[in-house]
């Protein structure tokens, strides 16, 4: 009797066993990664080529969200050479004050299709400006961010570890003017927290929404302290965006304690935050 069938059977069983154990590798091979705006083009190889489907699809959809906000006009970050030569981005428009909500920084982005006076291509450039979704974006405004909410929802469904999708999506939900908007935003973030229990950013945002939008200091403090424990556990060994979120956590904690006149806790939170970013002006002021 040949050994072939037994060998094949053994290999199949080994493959099945490996497959059943593979998910345990998930946190190592697929750690939650954040893609921030145009950085996706540089940090997510999968966004440019092919990669793991979920992260790739989520990164691709996030880039599309940026595109949707600009109604199809492709934007890019200024190159180092352009910054050195004094080029400026297109800047925000009437709703420039809204851009502080980190949708993106318009001051450092320009259109991918260049303006006529900066285009060496002559007739080819004119044709492209006629066929592509292009217009002069100086002083532009954005489409209503709520139009990209379904996309954020789809992004987090495809890749629940895509933290930006949860946080930005919640921000957009909370912008709505009806009474239940903040509760819906918090519910959305809670779903994100269940998928990403160690995300400082998500937990911090739950806390800040409670404090700033619902005036529920006790509830907000509970979540901010939870974010603080996660930050302590991670001990600065985290992504850049999570580190930024950690600093945000300490700022809010210090502010809340200051509001409650709990000076000792205020100083402790500020000091802990300064260990992350020593020259943060807000924390320095709160640490005094």
């Amino acid at each position, binding site marked *: 009797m040949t050994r072939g069938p037994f060998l094949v059977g053994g290999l199949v069983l080994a493959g099945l066993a490996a497959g059943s154990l593979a998910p345990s590798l998930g946190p190592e091979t697929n750690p939650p990664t954040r893609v921030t705006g145009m950085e996706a083009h540089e940090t997510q190889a999968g966004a440019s080529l092919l990669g793991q489907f979920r992260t790739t699809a989520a990164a691709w*959809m996030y880039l*599309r969200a940026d595109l*949707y906000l600009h*109604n*199809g*006009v*492709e934007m890019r970050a200024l*190159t180092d*050479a*352009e910054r050195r*030569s004094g080029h400026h981005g297109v800047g925000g428009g009437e709703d420039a004050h809204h851009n502080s909500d980190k949708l993106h920084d318009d001051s450092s982005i320009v259109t*991918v299709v*260049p303006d006529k006076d900066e*285009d*060496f*291509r*002559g*007739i*080819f450039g*004119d*044709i*492209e400006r*006629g*066929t*592509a*979704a*292009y217009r002069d974006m100086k002083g532009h405004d954005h489409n209503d961010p709520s*139009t990209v*909410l*379904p*996309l954020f929802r*789809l992004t987090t469904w495809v890749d629940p570890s895509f933290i930006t999708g949860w946080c930005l999506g919640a921000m957009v939900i909370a912008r709505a003017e009806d009474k239940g908007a903040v509760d819906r935003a918090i519910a959305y973030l809670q779903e994100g927290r269940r998928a990403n229990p160690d995300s400082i950013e998500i937990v911090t945002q739950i806390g800040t929404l409670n404090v700033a939008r619902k005036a529920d200091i006790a509830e907000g403090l509970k979540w901010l302290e939870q974010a603080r424990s996660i930050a302590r556990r991670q001990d600065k060994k985290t992504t850049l965006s999570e580190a930024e979120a950690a600093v945000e956590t300490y700022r809010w904690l210090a502010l809340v304690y200051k509001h409650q006149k709990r000076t000792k806790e205020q100083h402790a939170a500020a000091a802990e935050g300064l260990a992350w970013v020593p020259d943060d002006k807000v924390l320095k002021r709160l640490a005094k």
Partner: protein
Amino acid sequence: MKLVAVRALVRGVILESVRRKDLWVIAILGFLILAASGALGLFGVKGLEIFVKDLAVTVLGLFSVILAVLTSCRVLPDEIRNKTLYPLLARPISRLDLLVGKYIGAVAVSWLGFLALVGLTAVALLAFGVHFDLVMAQYVVAKMMGLAVICAIGLCLSAYMTPNAASTLSFLLVLGSTVFTRALQMASAELPSMTWAFRALNAALPQTHLFDLGGRAVYVNWSPAPLWVMAALAGYMMLYVAATVGLGWLRFRRQAL
């Protein structure tokens, strides 16, 4: 040029495509599109209209390019490999007639496949109440012009290299068209003294991304492209096709078979 011969060659390319079941690939892709849209329907497309249109245009663009490149890169080499070229050339047709006939046949197959995909996509989207504006018609026309340029590139390259090398290079040139253009723009910003060289290189490289009106078709409140732009695209298409098919003929006319 013998139009009768060219017509017969075009018919031959289409029949060969059908026999080789290339258009079955389109049918399978079409089925996948319908299945995907059905899946989206389960989740609801409310609020996702732009995303769905975006996805549709991306898929249409990619699949039509794949079909055009693979068809155009094979029409000549297959004839040579199968030795069916000899009886063809034994007839009173010139190598130029043959090349033009094969080219038009490749374009016809690409257009048929593209239009079939457009039809299936339109049915899928309309079923979900997602509508396209008039600019979509411009998108279809411009895309067809673009496919004609792509077929010319594939055919020309297949005269100089193996079908696999020709397809690879064609994909690089077509799918990388935007990347090359942006790279040249940035290089020009860094080295203004060399702008003349970048301009020449930009003119030589195929500008297939110019034929993509997907951005205007997908997003809202975009007017159709001006008429002069469409006329310029048509002019560019004719010039570029003439140049590339001509380049291919320069090689093919002297090629030992």
